[in-house]
């Protein structure tokens, strides 16, 4: 078996039947990280104990224990998720030395299923960015073209997975941060329904939008990983008590009679011709497979970016108030002062600890929540958010899954958009409405641009209908032009 390109269940089966040890698997991928990641900068910390963690899995197997469906499968975890004993910085100087005393529920569940954590993955600072250029640890490069961004904010996860430095990764998605980098790097990324996956131990950005999900190499791997990390958690009151379906076992590519909704509004914008062609081809493919194509309308999609940024920045300004230089994280140097103003202590620490984009969003959010502006911005955004959600619920009366582009264009060049925050925000036109409405969404690789960059297709389903979305993705995957192709870095 070629470990580099093996699926999650292939690795787990091989480890369980002892044709390869978990330790050998961890060693194989660790060597890949050491040799290839110098070009990509996708890892920010390496788990110093990964080999002994893997050896422990082997020991348990030797004793005849059931080690779970992901026995010995090496994963990389986005820096937003706390990992006990492994540095977790959220891509920020303010958490530069933070070592969590506990695992996020997602991480704990992966470990319980047999996963070996190899390290932490780079991201935009506090997940605020669409290019991975706002990270304190520096930009990540797209393995398909090192001059391009991998997307963001889960850019490290997407790049590491595309280059097969691990067998699976976890990302988080607040406004597209799983789906957009997955599209840019040619991997499968799933943002589950809000409440499907616990947020306990995930560094909070915008709590009513954040969800963690798999960023992996195939739809089947995504379904299996999602199954492992989903489900009620008493430490997150917004998780649903609904049972977790056996998505990976129910996965089927027979989509005859399924109704695929195409938003009228999709094509209105100026899509890159390669994206346009890929979307058209995906629709044609599904039609040939027996799906019914129906037109739907979510007219307020065009308001998704303003509503998203108003809501997300407001929640962020509140969530990030906890970084005060007292209990953990960066503290400005005050050695020479005998008595200082408390506000001075906070202000200096935060001013030095946060990067430019994070400060910009804290300012924006504080402004929107401040006296005199609350009704016009935060409250109004919440009302429009309800309208957008209602329009989606209407659309899902006519179809099972909505198909759309993930982004207007394939991966852009490093440095190309970083100087204009508003232009960067407008990148998120196709992804943010899914988070606002709490719907499950995913990107599945389907086409390649003329320059050889991957292009994903976005699929969105109604609340808790992940199965339908995964089935359509499974069908599209079988006809994908990206299938079997790998970035040159690999």
């Amino acid at each position, binding site marked *: 078996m070629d470990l580099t390109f093996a699926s999650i269940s292939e690795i787990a089966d091989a480890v369980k039947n002892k044709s390869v040890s978990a330790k050998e698997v961890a060693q194989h991928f660790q060597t890949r990280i050491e040799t290839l990641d110098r070009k990509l900068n996708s890892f920010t910390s390496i788990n110093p104990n990964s080999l002994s963690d893997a050896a422990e899995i082997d020991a348990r197997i030797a004793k005849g224990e059931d080690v779970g469906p992901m026995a010995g499968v090496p994963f990389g975890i986005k820096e937003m998720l706390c990992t006990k004993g492994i540095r977790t910085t959220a891509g920020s100087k303010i958490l530069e030395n933070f070592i969590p005393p*506990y695992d996020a529920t997602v991480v704990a569940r992966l470990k319980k299923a047999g996963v070996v954590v190899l390290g932490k993955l780079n991201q935009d600072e506090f997940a605020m960015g669409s290019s991975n250029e706002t990270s304190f640890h520096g930009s990540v490069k797209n393995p398909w073209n090192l001059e391009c961004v991998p997307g963001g904010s889960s850019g490290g996860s997407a790049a590491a997975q595309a280059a097969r430095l691990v067998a699976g990764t976890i990302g988080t998605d607040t406004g597209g941060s799983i789906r957009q980098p997955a599209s840019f790097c040619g991997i499968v990324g799933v943002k589950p329904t809000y409440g499907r996956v616990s947020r306990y131990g995930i560094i909070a950005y915008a709590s009513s939008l954040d969800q963690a999900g798999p960023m992996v190499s195939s739809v089947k791997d995504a379904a299996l990983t999602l199954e492992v990390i989903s489900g009620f958690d008493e430490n997150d009151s*917004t998780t649903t008590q609904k049972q977790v379906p056996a998505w990976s076992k129910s996965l089927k590519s027979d989509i005859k009679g399924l109704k695929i909704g195409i938003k009228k509004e999709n094509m209105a914008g100026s899509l890159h011709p390669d994206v346009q062609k890929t979307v058209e081809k995906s629709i044609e493919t599904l039609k040939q497979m027996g799906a019914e194509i129906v037109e739907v309308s979510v007219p307020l999609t065009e308001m998704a970016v*303003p509503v998203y940024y108003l809501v997300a920045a407001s929640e962020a300004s509140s969530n990030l108030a906890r970084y005060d230089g*007292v209990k953990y994280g960066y503290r400005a140097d005050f050695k020479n002062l005998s008595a200082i103003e408390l506000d001075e202590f906070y*202000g200096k620490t935060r001013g030095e600890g946060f990067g430019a984009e994070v*400060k910009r969003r804290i300012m924006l959010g504080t402004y929107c929540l401040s006296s005199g502006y609350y009704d016009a911005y935060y409250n109004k955004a919440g009302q429009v*958010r*309800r*309208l957008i959600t209602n329009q989606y619920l209407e659309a899902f009366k006519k179809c099972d899954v909505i198909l759309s582009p993930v982004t207007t264009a394939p991966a852009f060049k490093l440095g190309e958009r970083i100087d204009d925050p508003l232009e960067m925000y407008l990148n998120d036109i196709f992804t943010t409405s899914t988070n606002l409405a709490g719907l499950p969404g995913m990107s599945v690789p389907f086409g390649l641009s003329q320059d050889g960059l991957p292009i994903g297709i976005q699929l969105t389903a109604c609340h808790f209908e992940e199965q339908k979305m995964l089935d359509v993705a499974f069908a599209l995957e079988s006809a994908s032009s990206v299938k079997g192709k790998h970035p040159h870095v690999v």
Partner: protein
Amino acid sequence: MIDKKTIEHIAKLARLHVSDQEAEEYSTQLAKALGHFEQISKINTAGLEPLITPTEIEAYWREDEVKQSFTAEDMTANAPSRAGNLFKVPPVV
């Protein structure tokens, strides 16, 4: 433009030091972003409850019991400055 005084006021509310250069940047960047975002004011939302949590929160009961938690050592291990199990801060009075 959002004037410098407003930026200073917001920065104070956010407990965030911003340099003069940052203040200048934010005043144009925030004004530009908010100018774009203001288009939502045209949408009729009369009588609508704002949507805060996008899926229904299912309330549940649990036993009120003591559980294994973190030790004081765990909780203070990341402190920038500490004295035993206490967080140490500069004198503020």
